[in-house]
Structure formats: C-alpha cells, structure tokens
C-alpha cells in the first residue's frame, strides 16, 4: 500500500484549486493537489477558449502572496469602467446607460482580466518552483475517512494520502462534498449561459459592458486584440430553449443575432471561438466544513456568471482558509479551525448569492413596465453617489 503524507490535500485543479495549492505552498505547507482532468495550458489547445477571469483587488493581493502575480502582470488587462446599459426600448434601443468608474472608489482599477489558459499555465509553473507542492493530473479524489488525528484520502489510482486537511475545490458536483455528507441547495432559473468571444469594429477601451434587455444580461468583457481586431469575451444569458437555438445557428447568423443583442454598441460582432452552453444555477452548500474537510469555490457556492463574483468569492474563501491555517499551524484541520472558517464565510456567501440571484432575476424581466423600473433603478443607483460607491465597494469585495 502506497500512502503519502501531506499537510493539505486539495481535490480539484481548476483556477481555485491551483491558486490554493500555490498559496498554501508559499505559506510553507506541504500540499498535494489532484485533478482527474489535465488542465488546458495552451491557447492552441482545441479545448482552449478565449474565456477570461476577472480578478478584483483582494484576489490580486492573494495572487501576489502566492507568487503568481509577477508572472501574470504583463498579460493582465485592467478593468477601469463597468458600463451598465438598459436596452429594453423600441427595437432594442438604449433607454439607460451609466458608467461605474473605478476612480470613484480608489486609485486602482476594479480588477484585471486574465486569459484562463495562460492563468493555469502560469500557476502550474509557479507550483513547479515550490518543492513542497505536488500537482497530480489525471488522478482524482475517490473516497476519504476523516479521523480525529488526520484524514485518509483514497485517489482514483488507489494510492492513499494521509493529511490534516482536505480541501474540496472540485466544482459544482464536488466529490469531496458528497463524501463529507454535506448537503447543497440548488436553485434553477431555466436559463443557460452561452459563452464565446467576438471581434468587433469599435475598440472597447477596456470597458466591461453589461447590456440588459429581457431574458438575461449580455456581457462583453474586454480581451487583448485578436488577429488585429478588438476582441471581447461574451457571456450571453438566455432561456434554455433559446440557448440551444442560438448554439445551433451557423456562425454568420449567430454573429448577426449577437450584434442586434449588443444594441450595436461596438458595431458588427464576429464570432471568434466555438460556443459553449452552461446551465445557470445558484447552489450553496449548507455548510463549508466537515471533519478534516473544508469546501471552497464552486464546491461551496455556484452563482450565475454576473459581476465577476464567482471566482472572487472563491478566492475570498481561500483568503479566509489560508489566514486560519497560518494561525492554526499546529492544529491544522481541527474542528475549531474549520468551524471558524464556516462562520467566517457562510454569511458573506449567502449575501453574494442572494444579490447575484436578484440581479439575474431583474435582468430576466420581460414586462415593459418592470423593464422601465429596472432602467430607472440603474440610473438611481448610479446617480446617487453614496449608494453607487457602497455597492461598488461591496462588489469589489471591500465591503
């Protein structure tokens, strides 16, 4: 029997799990991170897409501590302005448009956008520098037994890991969450998100734009130029049946419909990647801790992809867990440490999930009267500065 011993075992090698591996490794813990799927680390990989992840300021601080940020700084596109547009007027004309400028709440931009494949490549390169961190790809979590003194994790290749702390960063159907017997509440919206990237005629000026009409928001996130043209990543949320119709259109038809839906703000949009369809759900674990176990990221909370809250909430989980691990170095994974983690994160996650859920529902509104109220609401929030800055600070994780 082959049993390795580490301080921390992390199930899941997505952005959250890999960042956690680097952060705990940089803090001096021995770490094993495993994921059954090999990560995509090349832009030319057929599984690569142009999707990006927005990192807000607290997340950047964490990446700096983990020694990842210096590798990414050159590729990071700052997010200076978030533009909210209500296009529920006649023929999709714009009825309200307000810019939320980062300079209202500080000197730094809202955040930075990073391409996912590059992010993974650079975090993996950072893990290679850390002798106390091992990343195993193609091998996943299979089972665990949590004892008072430690947990024994069995991997899919039958090898075992003895560890003080098991971190479930293994996604919305988290095997660790199931093994720990922690329930999760799921809310479905009958909605799907289409994700893809487009090139467009007009420059985006690093403005992130969220266009509301009916059925769900259409969000353009600025990307570096692609083949010499301005380029944006798009998250387009629509009803389930509509998502499948849009996915099955040919590229030209699809580009034309996307252009109309974008209210022509950037001129003609041209599809630049394949389209992916994701179901939109809110799912929250009933608690974030179990014996020797902590849940983080989508294993603990799935939110609709609005307002860059998903990964940043995940990294807020990591922040809390890392700080507690450092103060509980000699009692790592103890019940006391893990209940402190659950207390620290539970209410924040509930608040953000409810907020995002509410935003999503207002965005789905098809009733013209309610659409008008929504447009007025956007103007109101924007035009009353204390309200605007408070909500912006909250959205940025500054509370």
């Amino acid at each position, binding site marked *: *029997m*082959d*049993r390795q011993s580490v301080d921390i075992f992390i199930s899941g090698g997505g952005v959250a799990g890999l960042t956690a591996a680097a952060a705990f490794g940089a803090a001096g813990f021995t770490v094993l991170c495993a994921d059954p799927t090999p990560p995509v680390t090349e832009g030319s990989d057929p599984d690569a897409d142009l999707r990006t992840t927005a990192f807000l300021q607290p997340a950047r601080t964490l990446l700096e501590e983990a020694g990842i940020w210096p590798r990414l700084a050159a590729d990071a596109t700052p997010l200076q302005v978030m533009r909210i547009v209500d296009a529920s007027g006649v023929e999709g004309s714009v009825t309200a448009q307000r810019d939320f400028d980062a300079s209202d709440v500080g000197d730094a931009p809202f955040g930075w956008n990073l391409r996912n494949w590059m992010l993974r490549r650079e975090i993996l390169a950072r893990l290679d520098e850390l002798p106390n961190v091992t990343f195993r790809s193609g091998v996943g979590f299979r*089972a*665990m*037994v*949590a*004892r*008072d*003194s*430690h947990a*024994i994790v*069995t991997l899919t290749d*039958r090898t*075992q890991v003895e560890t003080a702390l098991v971190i479930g960063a293994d996604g919305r159907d988290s095997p660790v969450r199931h093994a720990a017997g922690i329930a999760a509440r799921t809310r479905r919206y009958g909605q799907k998100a289409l994700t893809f990237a487009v090139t467009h005629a007009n420059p985006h000026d690093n403005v992130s734009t969220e266009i509301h009409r009916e059925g769900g928001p259409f969000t353009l996130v600025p990307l570096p130029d692609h083949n010499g043209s301005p380029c944006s990543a798009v998250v387009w949320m629509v009803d389930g049946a509509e998502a499948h119709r849009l996915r099955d259109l040919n590229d030209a038809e699809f580009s034309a419909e996307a252009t109309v839906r974008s209210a022509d703000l950037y001129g003609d949009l041209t599809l630049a990647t394949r389209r992916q369809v994701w179901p939109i759900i809110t799912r929250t674990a009933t608690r974030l801790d*179990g*014996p020797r176990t902590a849940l983080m990221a989508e294993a603990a909370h799935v939110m609709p992809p609005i307002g860059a809250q998903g990964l940043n909430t995940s990294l807020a989980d990591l922040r809390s867990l890392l700080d507690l691990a450092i103060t509980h170095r000699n009692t790592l994974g103890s*019940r006391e440490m893990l209940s402190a983690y659950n207390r620290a994160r539970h209410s924040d996650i509930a608040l953000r999930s409810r907020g995002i859920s509410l935003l999503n529902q207002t965005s789905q509104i098809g009733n013209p009267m309610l659409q008008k109220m929504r447009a007025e609401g956007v103007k109101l929030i924007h035009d009353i500065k204390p309200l605007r800055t408070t909500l912006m600070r909250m959205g940025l994780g500054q509370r």
Partner: protein
Amino acid sequence: MSDLSPAAPTSTIDAGEIAKFEAMAAEWWDLEGKFKPLHMLNPTRLDYITNQIAAEFGRDLDAPAPFEGLRILDIGCGGGLLCEPMARLGATIVGVDAAPRNIPVAQIHAEQSGLTIDYRVGTAEDMAADGEQFDVVLNMEVVEHVADPLAYLTACQQLLKPGGLHICSTINRNPKSFAMAIVGAEYVMRWLPKGTHEWNKFITPDELFDLMRQAGLNPVDRKGFKFNPLGWSWSISDRDLSVNYVTASLKP
C-alpha cells in the same frame, strides 16, 4: 480457515441441543426479537468498521471481496452479527466469545448462511497467551463488561500485528448515558436484561484513550453512535459522544 477450534466442535453437540441452538440462532438473528437494539445499531457499526478497515488497508469497498487476505478477530462475537458481514467481505474471521452457549448458535447460523467462520469459546487474554495475531481486532461493546480494562486492552494490543487496527466501542459515563443505557434501555424499553450494565464500569472517551495509550495503542479516532428517537435509527456523529461511542487505534 475452515478448521473449528477444539473448544466447541459441532459434533459434540447432541440433537436436542442443536434444536435449542437453532431456536437461539433464530432469536439472535430476529430483527424484531430480543436483539433488536443490536440489529438497529448494526448497520451503523458496520459502516464505521468497514470504512476504517478499507481506509487503513487501502481496500476498495466496491470490489467483490475487499477484505480478502485480512485476518480479523471479533471479540464478544455473540451470534455472529459482525463476523458474518466480515466473512462476506472476504476477511478470514475468527469470532471468540466467553459465553460457551453463543458459539454453537453462531456456528449453526454461519452454516445456514454458507459462510466459513472460525468460532471459538474463550477470552482475548487466552488468545493473546496463545500468540495469535490479527490485522484487525473488533472490540465492540465489551470493555464496559470486563473486570480489568487495562489488562484487557493490553491483550487486544498483543493480538494485533504491527500496524494493525483496533476498533473499540463502548458507553460513556455521564448522567445522560445512565439515563439512556440503563434506565432507558434496560428498564423502560426492556431492550436489554436488567443488570446488563453497571454504570460505574462505563468509561469516558478520554479515559479510554488514556487506557489505550497505556496498553501500547495509538488512538486516532473517536465518533459517537447517536440514537435518533424520531427516526428510530442510529447514525455516526462526529460531535455527540455522550452515550454510545466508537474509537479507532493503531498498534505502532
């Protein structure tokens, strides 16, 4: 392991006795009979035991005979409620009981179930003196009945191979366990005969951990077996060890 110990060979039991033991076996294994409380607790005990063994020895519980090659001893085996599932999981199992009448009962039921189990009359101390060794020692609801717990646990330790796993369950000592295990189980529910337990022999988890350390075992886990009166069922609790609890310890 098909050879039965000479202490209780089936052939020495006469026909009348066999009928009596068959009736007793039926009683032991009657889910609604006088051992109902044990049957109710049994799935929860088995869940804990099988998971601990599988984790410790790197076995896959989904495999056809996950415990193949493991030699397991069940002390206080009674009618074989733990031995039989262990045998089904592929273990080589020895069941020992100090009460001679339990052994033929267990043997008859094992034969009826088509299982090969080595049942013996005896005590842990006797077996340790014989130099027997096992990968796993199951010591369930026994330690609260013995006269000298330290000597008994020392025998359990001697019965383990180095790296072996010892699972020990018992009853806590506090006002709640007195109310539940003695007043509740023996007098109110009549689950157990009056006088089954002496409350002053009950051991707290901390005391048991201390005793195990003195006996040369390294305690690694403690969990509660919690009775839920609404669902009329048992579950494993990592927080509530107030009445029934179970521990895992390793021989270094």
